[in-house]
């Protein structure tokens, strides 16, 4: 009988801990609201377009401003040697209308 209660109590504690962490997260998000607001103000004031996360190449420092194509596979998702570049998504070409027809009309 004791084992069952110990297990249920343990599971209850874990559930309580998880719920507590969710509430903690919500509280932290609220607390850090000022920080996020200040960061948003800095981004707007300096007219920044990208977050400062990977600094190994231009296209990983400013992915949104990167060239679409250039020599030496210099674009996100290309075959190259920077780890953060190889884990960046290739550019979104969905907005570019390129109808390519081949063969006889």
């Amino acid at each position, binding site marked *: *009988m004791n084992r069952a209660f110990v297990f249920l109590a343990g599971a209850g504690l874990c559930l309580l801990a998880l719920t507590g962490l969710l509430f903690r997260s919500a509280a932290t998000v609220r607390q*850090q609201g000022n920080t996020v607001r200040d960061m948003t103000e800095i981004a707007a004031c300096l007219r920044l377009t990208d977050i400062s996360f990977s600094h190994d190449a231009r296209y990983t420092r400013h*992915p949104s401003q990167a060239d679409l194509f250039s020599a030496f596979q210099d674009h996100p998702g290309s075959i190259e040697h920077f780890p953060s570049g190889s884990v*960046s998504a290739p550019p979104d070409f969905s907005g570019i209308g390129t109808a390519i027809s081949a063969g006889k009309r």
Partner: protein
Amino acid sequence: MSLTKHINILDYTLLSLLRRKFRNAGIILVFSLVICITGSVLLLTYAFKREAVLVLGNVPELIVQKMTAGRHELIPVSLGEEISRIPGVSGVEPRYWGYYFDSFTKANYTVVTPGGRLSEGNKLLQGRLPSAEEKGVAAIGGGIARTRFLGIDDDLALFSPDGKLRNFRVVGIFQAPSELLTFDLIVIGKGDLQELFSLPPGIATDLVVGVRNETEAPVIARKIRERIPDSRPILRREIIRTYDAVFSWRSGLILTLFAGALAAFAILAWDKATGLSADERREIGILKALGWETSDILEMKFWEGVAISLTSFFLGILAAYAHIFFFDAALFAPALKGWSVIYPRFHLVPFIDPYQIATLLSLTVIPYIASTIIPSWKAAVTDPDEVVRG
């Protein structure tokens, strides 16, 4: 009565699990690890995406680059006049920025000019921001301050392309919580930046286009492309979408790297859960012979699945939370940050999507319980004598 019976069955189940404690502890350990890795990826990418989208929510609506030979080129400021004549455009401003390679530290910095003033209450800047017209002063990111051992009123020395050393008095240092945005920034006045990079007058890095009605931005971007064919307009929504795509890609890639481990665990769990060992079959036979109903056997197996999968889930998800938000994603961060000389010390705001946690719970706990119950049901409906004799 019925509650006592359930408690008793659970108690017996736990006793049965404890008899094979090393085997079950091994499964819980691996199961927890798999949930921890998957949970870490989900928490990390969601927190990154939310923070990036929030922070970059007020970036310029439209940025126009000039393209030459397929590459981003400096743009004549005079093109702004042509763009400002497009209906719906509220204003065009040149943006001056560039990269500086620091030969002392072998690091790359991003040099920008301010487009306005920060409010007095902004706590993320110690000191002040230089104005666009000021000369000889700079505000720097925490990464540069640490790498070059700089404080307020110290001099930041930078080389211009002609080899001359230029000194900037540090009047502001961005504080640690803003490192995800400002880590490698040097903010100087427009004149200083033009001299530092030897930019000819009338030339900017790109143009910031103000749009009166946000919904018209794509139309304005198309008109800019028509009037200036060698331009590349970048919409705010494309910037946001880039970050959404980058982090989705990264999370997918990490999960793909762990796919082998996930598959190995799935095979292990499937094998363990679906194939009853001779001991387990004998145990079911004996319990049936002692008078246990088939429903009791199924309940026992249900509790067994719950005990293992729920324990693993809780251990895994709590470890994932600690990994991402207490230890700043220490396992993943090196791969995500890439190769560099300076690395930002980001501390993520714990944005959590409860839906993701619920999905992870349903994808791990429920299949495990189901795969435990089905083979037990097969054994439980068989004649006890047959089951015990094998």
